[in-house]
């Protein structure tokens, strides 16, 4: 109990400092756990080890639950290509550099696998925080990290077969089949029946979810698979709506507790890599953060994403996360990785997770967009004068385009290639790109436009557009009144979604819940 108290105590302090300094929780917690060990706190090694084991199991389970596969449906092809390319690139670098760095080939494979696993939890957290969870590039990134988790765990099971015979290979293959079958049965029949029809109370539902986790972990154990494989399959089988929503509600606290426990106990059991490993760490950091992202950007762009969205997407994937650490822990337990190599994975994960917020940050990405060479823009060959420019053809933009088409000259900017093709087919001038990019905006002659209408989501984008349009009137759709104030300060006009939506809601409310005569003095007369 003393050990748990120490771990939680240091975690509490570290998280507060992390929030103040705007540093990622995971990195701060690992550092705090390590400091606890360095200071010589009286930690029971067995408890630290068991805490790490239990929390890693729960963590991978939570990763499995986190993303409903339905959310990324339709993007698996592109996402799969991204995931595979990242894994192959890292594998090639690791194997190629292994003799040079003095790393054995098997160890290099584990390292490549560990570095390939981006943090799903971190990606989800950042996308939710920035309100980008539903943007097309975000769905592709989520699909990629989800597939990465799956592929990494399968590869991990495969690596366990090295030096094993046919029988064990069959056991493992049977295990994977059994887990998949059990997952399908659980997802389609058992979990929906137990959790939505049996009328269990909260405690019974929680117990069922935990028992499912342990049953899958047990199955993986029996089939010589890594325990985390069972945990991931269990989580994934419970992720579909409506079961997923119920389960997420129950395990939110577990998530807070075990994420904290995992990272801080990891730090407390960290063996720092040898100084001689600095070269290897530096190499892998450069590959993860610089090389691989630039290999992935073209693939993103081929899927139709703008340069900016592509950079944001690869920025989110430019890290090694919690699953990578779990992979390294499994490698260590199998004797396929040394303690300093585990330390190397942890250091790389800590550093990359610390910087992922920066690499996918708007200002950083814009800096890159302006510095990177881009394709010459396609010339708009229709003379544009006294036209209306619509930036963003989502739900709001579409209402505008449908209304204005045929009545006024119209030019639309959107970063979705399918939207652009559809508009062109209707005879509307459409440009693919980021509407807040002055170069893209310049192609539709804003200086000669009658008015520019922006339906972009981010306030910073809209302010950039208002500035770029000079004397041309700009009308902006914003969500909150404070955002409207910022737009008006720069000379733009704004319509405020929240106020309009409230008005529409009240209309429905009055119809649905008509006020009685006693509440309406007028009607009493």
């Amino acid at each position, binding site marked *: *109990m003393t050990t748990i*108290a120490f771990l939680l*105590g240091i975690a*509490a302090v570290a998280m*507060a400092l992390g929030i103040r300094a705007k540093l990622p*929780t995971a990195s701060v917690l690992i550092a705090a756990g390590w400091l606890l060990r360095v200071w010589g706190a009286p930690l*029971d090694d*067995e*408890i630290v080890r*068991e*805490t790490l084991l*239990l929390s890693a199991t729960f963590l991978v389970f939570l990763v499995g639950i986190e993303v409903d596969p339905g959310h990324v449906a339709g993007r698996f092809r592109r996402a799969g290509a991204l995931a595979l390319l990242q894994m192959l690139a890292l594998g090639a670098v690791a194997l190629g550099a292994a003799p040079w760095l003095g790393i054995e080939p098997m160890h290099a494979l584990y390292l490549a696998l560990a570095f390939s696993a981006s943090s799903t939890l971190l990606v989800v957290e950042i996308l*939710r925080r920035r309100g980008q969870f*539903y943007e097309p590039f975000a769905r592709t990134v989520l699909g990629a990290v989800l597939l990465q988790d799956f592929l990494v765990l399968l590869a991990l099971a495969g690596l366990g077969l090295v030096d094993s015979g046919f029988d064990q290979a069959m056991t493992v293959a049977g295990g994977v089949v059994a887990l998949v079958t059990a997952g399908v049965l659980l997802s389609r029949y058992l979990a929906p029946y137990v959790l939505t029809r049996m009328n269990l109370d*909260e*405690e019974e539902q*929680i*117990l069922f979810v935990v*028992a499912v986790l*342990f*049953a899958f*972990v*047990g199955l993986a154990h029996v089939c010589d698979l890594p*325990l985390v494989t069972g945990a991931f399959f269990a989580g994934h089988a419970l992720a579909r*709506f409506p079961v*997923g929503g119920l389960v997420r*509600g*129950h395990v*939110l*606290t577990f998530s*807070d*507790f075990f*994420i904290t426990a995992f990272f801080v106990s990891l730090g407390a059991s960290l063996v720092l890599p040898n100084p001689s490993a600095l070269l290897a760490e530096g190499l892998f950091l450069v590959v993860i953060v610089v090389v691989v992202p630039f290999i992935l950007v073209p693939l993103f762009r081929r899927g139709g994403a703008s340069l900016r969205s592509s950079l944001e997407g690869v920025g989110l994937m430019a890290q090694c996360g919690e699953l990578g650490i779990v992979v390294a822990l499994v490698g260590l337990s199998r004797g396929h990785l040394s303690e300093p190599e585990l330390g190397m994975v942890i250091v790389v994960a800590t550093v990359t997770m610390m910087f992922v917020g920066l690499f996918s940050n708007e200002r950083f990405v814009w800096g890159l967009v302006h510095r990177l060479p881009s394709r010459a823009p396609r010339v708009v060959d229709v003379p544009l004068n006294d036209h209306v420019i619509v930036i963003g053809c*989502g*739900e*709001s*933009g579409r209402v*505008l385009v449908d209304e*204005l088409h045929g009545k*006024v000259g119209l030019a639309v900017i959107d970063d979705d290639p399918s939207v652009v093709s559809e508009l062109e087919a209707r005879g509307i001038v459409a440009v693919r790109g980021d509407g807040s990019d002055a170069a893209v905006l310049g192609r539709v002659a804003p200086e000669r436009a009658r008015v520019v*209408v922006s*339906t972009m989501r981010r306030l910073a984008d809209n302010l950039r557009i208002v500035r770029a349009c000079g004397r041309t*009137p700009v*009308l902006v*759709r914003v*969500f*909150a*009144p*404070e955002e409207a104030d910022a737009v008006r300060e720069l000379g733009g006009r704004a*319509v405020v*979604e*929240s106020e*309009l*939506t409230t*008005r*529409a*809601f009240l209309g429905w*409310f009055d119809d*649905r*819940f008509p006020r009685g005569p006693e509440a309406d003095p007028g009607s009493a007369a």
Partner: protein
Amino acid sequence: MEVTERSFLEALGIMMIAAVIIVQLSRRFRVPSIISYILAGLAVGPILGLISPAALDDEAISTVSEMGIVLLMFLVGLELSLDRIRQVGKVALAAGVGQVVFTAAGGLGLCRLLGFDWMESIFISTALTFSSTVVVVKLLDQKNELHSLYGRIAVGIFLVQDLVVVVVLTFLAGLGSNDSLDASTIALGLGKAFGGMALLLVVCLVAAKHLLPRPFGWAARSPRLLFVWSVAWCFAFVISAHVMGLSAEIGAFLAGLSIAQLPCAHDLQRRVHPLMSAFIVVFFVSLGAQMRLGDASNYAFEAVILSLFVLIGNPFIFMFIIARYGYSQRTSFYTSVTVAQISEFSFIFASMGVATGLIGAPILALIALVGFVTIAASAYMILYNGPLYALVTRLGLLRVFRARQGEDEAGEDAARTGHVIVVGMNALGRSIVEALHQRGEEVLAIDTDVRKLAGLPCPTKLGSIEYPAVLAAAAAHRAKLVVSTLRIESANRMLAHRLSAAGVPVAVHAFDRTVVDAMREAGADYLLRSKKEGGARLVDELRRIGEVGA
């Protein structure tokens, strides 16, 4: 039966899976969950031999088990305020001490009558004296009656008993290797314990009023930070209590009590509860797995007599004491029923007796059997205290206590009903709250960020609607309408699904056209289509400023 040595994770998994199976099997017979857990422990331990005693002694398993107890008592502290505890302080002290004295004396006499020797009688009667805090608190929590008057008196009594346990343990520690009492060790132990109790209480009071409000107010902006701070605070108290020779339960309770005054206390209760529910299972299954009932076969008659003494005698003593303090017949009865079982401490105490050779293994088995019978029977008595009270009143069995008739407490505040719940205090949420409030609707605003709830003209609740308990606490099932302005698809979808199943109208924010179908399928009655509204208004605005024709 061959007993298998298992790793920590295997043992934990077996316990959880066994608990689920037994709970599901016994649901049809309305067996209280804690009895199912103990039966699961009996099944995986003594009966099937899936878990060895060594596995139960594993440091990690016992830590998980202790964490369950700690979180349970932390929750109790969070549930109660200092004022509420103070109101029942006198009666709890009198009943706690009085019951210990009378039960110990009565039990000693009964054991001598049953033919046990002096040493056995001392051990058995001491074991019969203490009631199980964990069992009772768990049952009261299950009934959602921890905050009731009788629940508070019961908690107070158990805390007094915990202090008496400390005294007993201190005396045991004072028994030197030559079995003679070492007065200085006892004095030191007692001084440390009572001094420590006073110190922790002072820290608790100071922290509640001066130390915690500001930092916890700051931490409340991040639900995870708030949760980790609270649990860390709890464990700091537990360790302090341990250092001072007090029980972990007392430390956890005081930690909870110090946070109970803060606005975030209710949200914390909901967050800690699921974790406690999972961990406490390990405690009860371990308890069952440790019971070795086979050796008690020669003591069947004695077990029946002693069980009846606990089930009837203990409540009798309590009923008498509590009624003397002017509490109503109902409150006195409900409180008394909570003490009709012996504690897990009784097993530990008897095990110590066996280890030191003062009593034999059959006595330990007898105490385990009495423990199982009384815990099982009292679980039913507590869960069904209403019908039981009606029965004994009808039979006139309570007249002898001459307790006051009537009620001690008015019922709960008028339950909220016909209100509109608005979830998510972003610009849209605040706008809707203000508009509905101006129309005279009773509105309840919910958000996870305490800053976003500030300055609203209506009652507010801190919490995430992804926790079912938050909806329950907001009385969502009695609401006129629930509105979510969140931009989180999974949360909105689940809310629509849950509430439409409960027949409550629900409006959710369909913040992107890709989520519209999913929200409708989930059962939303109305969709807040912010982008669509924005688009329509843009057209109107263009017309208004004359940039496009009508």
